[in-house]
Structures are given as C-alpha cells and as structure tokens.
C-alpha cells in the first residue's frame, strides 16, 4: 500500500472508528487530533513532488531576477552580498537575511527599488504560501 494512502486510511480510522468509541473527553480529542495530524502529513507528502518542482523553478526565476537587479543597479554592498548568498544557499535563513538587509537599507535603496526588490520576493513567497495552504488550511 502506498504510504500516503496508508496514512490517510489510519487518519480515517481514528476519526470514524477510534474517536467515537472513546468515552473520556481528553483521549477522544487526542484521537481526533491524531487523525487531523496524519491527514495533514498525508496531504503534505502527497503534494511534495509537485511542490518541490514548483519551488525549484520559482527559486531559479526569483534569484535570476534578483541577481540581475543586483548587477544592474548600484545596490548597497550588504544587499548584493545577501542576494548572492541567498541565490547560492537557497535556504529560508538566507532569504530571511536578504529581507532583513532590504529593510536595513531601505533609505539607501529608495522607495521604488525597495518596493521592487521586496515585491519580487513577496511574489515568490505568495506562490509558496499558496502551496503550503493546500495542506495546512
């Protein structure tokens, strides 16, 4: 049996068979919550291959755009460094540091460039969030 199918099956058993048979409030809630958690895990695992492909393509496009912006304009050195590090490492921590650098150098960037760079990152994050909400909401 496919592991994801198995998780969903267990979640359904907990919700429809185990939970209703439990008399006390707390363990019944726990059975229901176990069902919810396993259901969400199953959803996350089922979506993972497609989401992973989308995330890679999106990151390629995002960092290409940011690196192009870094090359085209006179950006503060710390911002350029953060763009390069984020493009290289592709981690949440590095993307977070880039966002922090944009805010830290907001005055030097000016309103338009700050909004353009942060807006491009937000565009990618919005797409990522939409994927995460497929199994979180």
């Amino acid at each position, binding site marked *: 049996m496919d592991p994801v199918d198995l998780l969903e099956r267990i979640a359904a058993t907990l919700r429809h068979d185990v939970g209703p048979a439990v008399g*006390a*409030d707390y363990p019944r809630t726990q059975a229901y*919550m176990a069902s919810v958690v396993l259901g969400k895990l199953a959803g996350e695992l089922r979506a993972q291959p497609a989401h992973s492909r989308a995330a890679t393509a999106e990151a390629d496009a995002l960092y290409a755009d940011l690196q192009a912006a870094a090359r085209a304009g006179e950006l503060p050195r710390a911002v350029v460094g953060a763009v390069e590090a984020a493009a290289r490492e592709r981690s949440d921590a590095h*993307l977070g540091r880039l*966002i922090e650098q944009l805010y830290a150098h907001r005055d030097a960037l000016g309103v338009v460039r700050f909004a353009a760079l942060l807006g491009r*990152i*937000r565009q990618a994050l919005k797409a990522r969030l939409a994927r995460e909400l497929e199994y*979180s909401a």
Partner: protein
Amino acid sequence: MNAPAADDTTRIRDYLAARLPGARDLSLANMQQIAVGWSHETFLFDASWREGGETRAQGFCLRRDPGNALLRELSDLGEQFRVLECLAPTPLPTPRPYWYEDDPAILGRPFLVMEKVPGECPNPWGREGRAYYAAAAARGVLPASFTDALATMHSLDWRAAGLDFLGVPGPGRDFALREIAKWRNFIEATGAAVHPILTDLMCWLEANAPACDRLTLVHGAYRTGNVLIDDDRISAVLDWELQVIGDPMYDVAYVLSDLNREGTELLSNVVERETFFERYEAATGIAIDEDVCHYYHLLYAMRSAAFWMSASDLYARGASADLRLARTAWSVPVVLERAARELGY
C-alpha cells in the same frame, strides 16, 4: 471538565488544612479540573469547615504549573499572583489571590490559590457559547459591562497599584519595539526555521512601530472566553498571562479583531462596534486610533505565529504529549496568509 486524580484532591485538602490552622472538619466538594487552556492546570472546588463554633464555606480556584506550559517563559504563576495582588484593591473585577507556593514538594509543581468567583465562561468558539453571547448581547447588559471592564483597566493608576514591576516602556515607539523583541525571542527559542514571510512581517513591524503617548495596564488577550460572567456582568477578568504596561490600543485592537468573533459582526461575539467605540471613548477619554489598531493586528499575527511555533515545538521535543500542540505546526501558514494579505502581498 474532569475529576482530578484522588492524590491531587488529598494533597490539596492537606495544603488547605495547613493554611487554615483554625479549621476543623475541613472537607472539599465539587472538585473539578477544568480541561481548557494549554498553559496551566486549573482546579475548582468548594471547601467547608468549622471554626470558632461556626460553619464556614469558601470556593477556591487553584492553578498549577504543568511544567511544560505554553507561555511558561513569559508569565509564571508567581507573576500572575503578584498581578492579582496588585489588582485586588482596584475597581477592576479580578479573583482575590490567597496563596502562592513555589515549593514543588507540596503539589508537585508551583501553584497559586485564588477566590472562586461566581460566574461562567462559555467557550466563544462553540455553538452553545455563540448562542449564549448572542442572547446576552441582545439583552444589552453584557456588552456594556464588557466594554466598561476594559475601560476600567485602561483607567487604572497602574503605578499606584504597584504594577510597574511588569516593566515600563520608554517614550515613543518603545512599547511596540519591546513587544516585537519579546515575541522574536520567543520564536528564536523554538530553534525552528523562520518562514521568510514571518521575517518580512517582523521587519515591517519594526519599521512601522507606532509611537505611544499614554501607557496603561494592558491585558493582552481581552475577549470573551477570558472573562467570567455572572448575571450578564463581568464578575472577573481572567487569564493574567500576557499583561504588560503599554499602549491601550493593543487591547482595543484585540477586541476589534475579527479573529475574536465567529459568525457575527459583534466584537468579541458580544458588543456592537459603535457601542464599543462610544462607551470606551467616553469612559476613558482615549480616542480609538484605527490605524494603530491595524498595526497591532499585524503584531498579533506575529504573536500567533510565535504561539503556534512554540506549541508545536513543545510536542516535537517531547515536552508535551498533547496532540493539539502537534497540530499547530500547520496553523503557522494560515496566520501568515492573513498577515501577507495585510502587508499587500
């Protein structure tokens, strides 16, 4: 509600007997352990005894630190007890505090004992609770009492009450920046990866922190579900875990938030917006600043993300076996989606 373990009941009775040395034939009745809330264990019971030839009776509420509570780092029971002591002589309805014990030899972990205040506290997220608040709103007394209690809190002389031990923000933007720093530390303590949208939100909050020119006692979670109601009036403001000295708009924003109502336009399920504005402003002399409240809605999004990250971390590292905490890992994106919309994503 559940019946507590027999061992707990015996130990509570023995403790009370020690605290009431003149009491004879002490007995406890109606012992209940309330099964709501993730932060502290709460026991309600009625004690009766004979003293000086008379029969006496008193209801008590005991809160015990479960050792792995959400928010434990932010507000321990000792601080809660001290806040209740400070508030006891004020006009704000709160439970009278009796004793605080940090000796784990007594009940296993620190605990406080306070007055069992008459009243009920329906869960605003359930069908029955919503019906209760809708009916109370229609009668008109509770909306006024709910608003008045907040106005009373925001009008207290908190220095005279001795509440400055909570920490007093400096002028200008200090209050908001302190709150951001507090919740940022809370997030970092989980050790979990920070979602970049949360980073964006924290940076935005720091860049746009509003100035605050009037400091009051701020409850931090003032809504139905955190107040006791008796005969349609607030008989006690509860859940003193997030209180600070700060911007009163922080509480007002919480009341205005649509996160604290369900299936109704009534603020906190109980009061019409116009009524709340008029009554609160008249009672406090404080004009409600909706722009500032909007800012605090985003700060609450950060706080919610911090709650959920901390809760799921408690489960992940084995500090709690409560699966409700495990489930909160998936609540973070839901909170961030709301914040992202507010930020203009």
